């Protein structure tokens, strides 16, 4: 193989993993995170994304700059200092608005879908969804992501619901 091409491919496929000692973080008043790479440049505002949001919610966090280029991946948040970890987790939390359903009070059938009256970890909410098939996806056994008519997402673990709520859910799926 042409060494140039080989190098190109390797370059294209290489992923930068950010070890804790590779970077420093700071947080401004508004709450946006700034990352300075060791012996390199500084990014005014970083964006974080979970790469495996369901299986590894606290691992494999992609750190991106404002134009959405990847700066690197943090393999495990546990390896960071408690402060950095909290900052990163706060940033992730801010970027993922996915309230978790704790209690289902009732589910009403309505034309073209359902009305859920639920209590989430973000407060009580009336959620309107279309038919079950399009709106509930079972991302892991017993774990659902529910998408409402506005495109908002709610998370639901059937195992963690109280009995009454689970019974209501089981009438549906």
């Amino acid at each position, binding site marked *: *193989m*042409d060494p*140039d*091409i080989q190098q*190109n491919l390797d370059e294209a496929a290489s992923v930068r993993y950010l070890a804790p000692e590779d970077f420093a973080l700071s947080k*401004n*008043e*508004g*709450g*946006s995170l700034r990352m300075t790479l060791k012996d390199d440049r500084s990014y*005014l*505002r970083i964006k974080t994304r979970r790469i495996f949001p369901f299986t590894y919610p606290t691992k494999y966090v992609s750190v991106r700059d404002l134009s959405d280029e990847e700066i690197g991946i943090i393999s495990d948040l546990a390896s960071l200092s408690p402060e950095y970890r909290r900052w990163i987790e706060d940033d992730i*939390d*801010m*970027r*993922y*608005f*996915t*309230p978790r359903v704790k209690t289902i009070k009732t589910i009403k*059938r*309505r*034309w*073209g*879908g359902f009305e859920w009256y639920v209590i*989430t970890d*973000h*407060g*009580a*909410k009336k959620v*309107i969804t279309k038919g*079950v*098939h399009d709106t509930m996806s079972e991302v892991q056994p017993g774990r659902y992501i529910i998408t409402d*008519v*506005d*495109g*908002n*997402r709610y998370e639901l673990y059937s195992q963690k619901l109280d009995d009454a709520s689970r019974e209501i859910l089981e*009438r*549906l*799926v």
Partner: protein
Amino acid sequence: MHELPDEIESRVREIADGADVDLAVESDLGPDGLMGKQWLVTTKDRLYVVSPDSGIPIVHHDIPVKDLNEINAEIQVGGGCLIANVKGEFVPLVRYSNAMAKEFGYAARRLQSVAKGEDAPPATEEDRTRRCSKCNFPLETGSDVCPNCVDKARAIKRLLAYIGPYRLLSGIAAALMLGSQAMQLAPPYLTKILLDDILKKAELHKGTVPLDMRHHLGFMLGIIVLALVGTRVVSMVMGIFQSRITAYLGSKMIHDIRLQLYASLERLTVSYFDKRQTGAVISRISQDTNALQEFLAFDIQYMLSNTLILVLVIAVLFQQNWKLAALTILPAPFASIAAMIIFTRLRWVFSRVWHRWSKLHGVMSDSLQGLRVVKAFAQEEKEVNRFERRSEALYLANMQAEQTWATLLPILWFVLTAGQFIVWYAGGIGVIDKQVTVGTLVMFLGYIGMLYGPLQIVTRMWDWIGRSLAASERVFEIMDSQPEEVDPEKQTRMPNIEGKVAFNHVTFGYDKNRPVLHDLDLHVEAGEMIGLVGHSGAGKSTTMNLLARFYIAQEGNVEIDGVDIRDISLEDLRRQVGIVPQESYLFSGTIAENIAYSKPEATPEEIIRAAKAANAHDFIVNFSDGYETQVGERGQSLSGGERQRIAIARAILHDPKILILDEATSSVDSGTEKQIQEALARLVKNRTTFAIAHRLSTLSHANRLLVLEKGKMVELGTHEELMAKDGVYAKLVKMQTEIASQVAVGG
């Protein structure tokens, strides 16, 4: 944009020294990120974020608009955040859930303009999620029907309008039905006469009946039995005719609806189909129209006839003996309530079965369609396990549904028929007390038997109507969707366009808040060939979609010969703008039909000439059926190169003035490649051509190259100019030559 509560407005006025509120947008999340409320409020020169509090509203941000370097509505997962760059610092201002994304997207655009000193863009309909005023359900753009709160009466009226043209036949069918149902009322009454007037008289004569009386009674008996047979036969014949008419009416009416629906579908814009799965649209046509057929043809009749018989039976019962009648229908209200509860319960369990069925279907169609992949990676067992899990879930749901059905239905039946026992007892006492004849009692029991079926149906009626209306709403929604926006008044006929094309500062996004093309400005002379170059996602296909008028630019416009394409008659436009798509789609039919798709009246000579020019003639002739070889689904399978050349032949025959060429990515051998290149060279001659090429070598004929990157034009010029510039294009060329030489050597 939103109505601002008084206390927040007065608070803002207070801190803003009485300045007027310019824009107010409500977020559905509080400052803590929990469900709640807060407001983005702007005045002429300041921006505030305020949240209500038990006392005085709290002001979280107070920023002069002129300090905004940048303000964006950042799209996040399940929501978004309005982020401002204030003097170099990024400040997240307001978080909101997806429900408010459009509104904040607009707010960001507006503030951005104001900060730059430009005029604030007015809010359009698309900048707001329109919601049903009754239930807050978001409405689709261009649709005012809320599927939940649809005016049922209106939908029924519209549905019944389909019966309109068949008024006479429907009337006849209804009359026949009425007759046939009325006939059914006769047997119990005749039974009464039989018992009370004939058999009883015979019984009164202890021992032998006198001969003349025997003759008389025998004669009467004969008449009654004949009448019984007669009513049955007449009722049957009427029923047969009624059903035959109904069958015709139902099938014909649904044909009308299906046709109208399909015609509306074909007129809809491409963007309508972007948002929907084709499968879902097809199932809507077939399933929902079927549901409507059932409703128009059978359910309506069934409901009417059962309601009718219910009324008639009750009337007869009351006329015969009102006391007994009252006792008979005593359990009816309870039965209705029980029926409603039971059918609601059954609906839940059966819809769960349906849901699990469709999941099982999903697994099946997935692994069967991808069978080659499954086998190639030896994952048969995993697929079977997946299937087993779904199938088991289905069996459990199914079992529960059947068991519920088996348990609840007999109970319902018991409640429903409980009146019978009351009648047996009360009627029996009446007979003993000689107040009621045996015949009346038997007749009553006969009528009661006829009562329960209709009663059960009447209780389910609303459920049926509800379901059919839901189906009709979905069907009507498609019919009512905006077709390609055509303003016949403004349509300029342009039968002979020259081919000059201009993109004037075009900005466009499939979703308005996420533009994929930014300020594209390009002027092309007639007959020129422009090559579009860029990475995937750079906006090449989008540019072409705008030229074909599949979509309309949000800012700026596209002109042909100096006329805005929105104003060109669609017929003329489509006839003179040809597209050779990346995936050459062949319809089921012969090769000749496929080549002549845009010009069905083409002569065989014309078709052959086009095929010849496209270097397709020789391979077509070699098929045993020549130009009449069946292709498309279940037809002769063609290679990628062959399909491509048929598509080129189609375009040559179409003879457009402006040609859009989207080069296929599938690689073909070098011989075929050469033939295709030749065919293309003939095709583009004397036409304004836009070519999207993935292999830059194929753009050697292009007069100019347009290089796009992330939706922006980064370079424009001839091959030589761009190579000399040593920019993005030069880099792409270098990369491709390297890969090409690599392939050539390594092979």
